[in-house]
């Protein structure tokens, strides 16, 4: 579904990503973890070209996203990749419902009524139907992030990317967001998640990628990764987490 082939990315002289070779299979949940500054967010942002890469290739759903394409094609491609940000980035001037319906209406030409119905169903699913007319400023962080997930789902993406979706949340709100993500995973959504929630990784992930200094050092199923990580850096990371 998402493949990285020899992906390299530099910021000036700084090598942010080095020779990334990896694959997220259809229906798989991959958790990307690692210390901060290890390139996790950069990696996930390359998939919808919020970050451009310097060399290598990234395929999404069988398409080379690096292939030369017009702006429209790129916009269309992005609309097929659900993306959830650490800072939610809801549109504060629009109600919850309008946040969700804006893109289907403006980009896909969905009729207003149909878009509203769909949005209500999505809000129902993330447990926020009663907040349809509220504005983002009136919602808690956890609620905002659930709306952001619903907003991404409204474009019916075949895969969802999560860039530290719970890092900006108060601890008591992490659970509600993870619950939504778990239910998505249970429905077979292909997911790539950058997260520090190791509990989520253990329960939900099919694969864990461990990154440090712009490289993927270890790829394993969560069972193996948490019980017996091979790479010394991963061992250190995990023991630091336990403290």
């Amino acid at each position, binding site marked *: 579904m998402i493949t990285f082939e020899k992906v390299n990315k530099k910021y000036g002289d700084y090598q942010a990503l080095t020779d990334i070779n990896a694959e997220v299979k259809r229906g798989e949940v991959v958790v990307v973890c690692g210390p901060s500054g290890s390139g996790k967010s950069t990696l996930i942002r390359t998939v*919808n070209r*919020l970050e451009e890469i310097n060399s290598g290739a990234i395929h999404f759903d069988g398409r080379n996203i690096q292939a030369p394409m017009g*702006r*429209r094609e790129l*916009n*269309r*491609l*992005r*609309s*097929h*990749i659900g*993306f959830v*940000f650490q*800072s939610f*980035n*809801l*549109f*504060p*001037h629009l109600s919850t419902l309008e946040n969700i319906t*804006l*893109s289907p209406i*403006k*980009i896909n030409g969905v009729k207003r009524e149909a878009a509203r119905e769909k949005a209500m169903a999505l809000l129902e699913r993330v447990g926020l139907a009663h907040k349809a007319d509220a*504005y*983002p*400023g*009136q919602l808690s962080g956890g609620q905002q992030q659930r709306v*952001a997930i619903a*907003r*991404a789902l409204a*474009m019916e993406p075949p895969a969802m990317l999560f860039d530290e979706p719970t890092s900006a949340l108060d601890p008591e709100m992490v659970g509600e967001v993870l619950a939504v993500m778990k239910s998505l995973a249970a429905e077979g959504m292909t997911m790539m998640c950058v997260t520090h929630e190791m509990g989520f990784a253990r329960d939900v992930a099919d694969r864990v990628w461990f990154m440090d200094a712009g490289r993927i050092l270890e790829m394993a199923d969560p069972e193996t990764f948490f019980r017996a990580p091979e790479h010394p850096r991963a061992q250190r990371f995990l023991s630091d987490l336990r403290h």
Partner: protein
Amino acid sequence: MLGDIVTIVRDNWLLLLVGQFPAGPLGGLVATLILSVLSIVLAFPVGMLIALARLSKSPFLLWPSTVLVYVARGVPLLMLIFWVYFAVPLLLGNRIPGFLAMLITLVIYEGCFLSEIIRGGIVALGRGQMEAARSLGHSYMGAMAWVILPQALYNMIPSILSQFVSTIKETTLGYVINVPELTFAANQINNQLLTQPFQVFFILAIIYFIVCWSLTRVAVLIERRISNKRSGRGGTVSEATVRALTAEP
């Protein structure tokens, strides 16, 4: 002295209000207000285009717009008025009325200032909103139209009103190219009376003050409403930013 002022106002209020209209061209306060409103309304789309050009990555848009803004900011308004007034006849072959010359000048000048306000409002929103819109598949212009500008422009209403107040004050310079506006009317009165310049220009100052002060009050009220609304709705621009933007008179 107060008696003189009352007499002058009583004898000349119509001239101060509408100039020599209907016998002559429309002037006075009405002309001042028409000129101000027209220039800010026309300057707004100009400012929007300049702001977008200044945010563009294309050097063909970025450079000319940047030069224009720096020239407008670096040259006294009076110079711009002379340029337009004297240069346009050279280009077109015939003179243009003072009112039109003043309008063109103000649209360019205010357009440049508004563009900086608009650009500031867009930049203040931060990258997250644009990234979120683009990741949903919106085009750059789509994201601007549906996500960025509605927020930025709303936040900018007080600054734009302040700019409107400046514009009203700047229309006085139209006097030098014989635009029949309020200052011009006051000067006509002064030329008739000859002996009471202080009283005449005192009246003029009071009129400008009342108009500009009322508008400033409106700006403050709107600003307060916006920040109240935002604290309920959680905006993306802090109150401090709004205050900084509206600090200018």
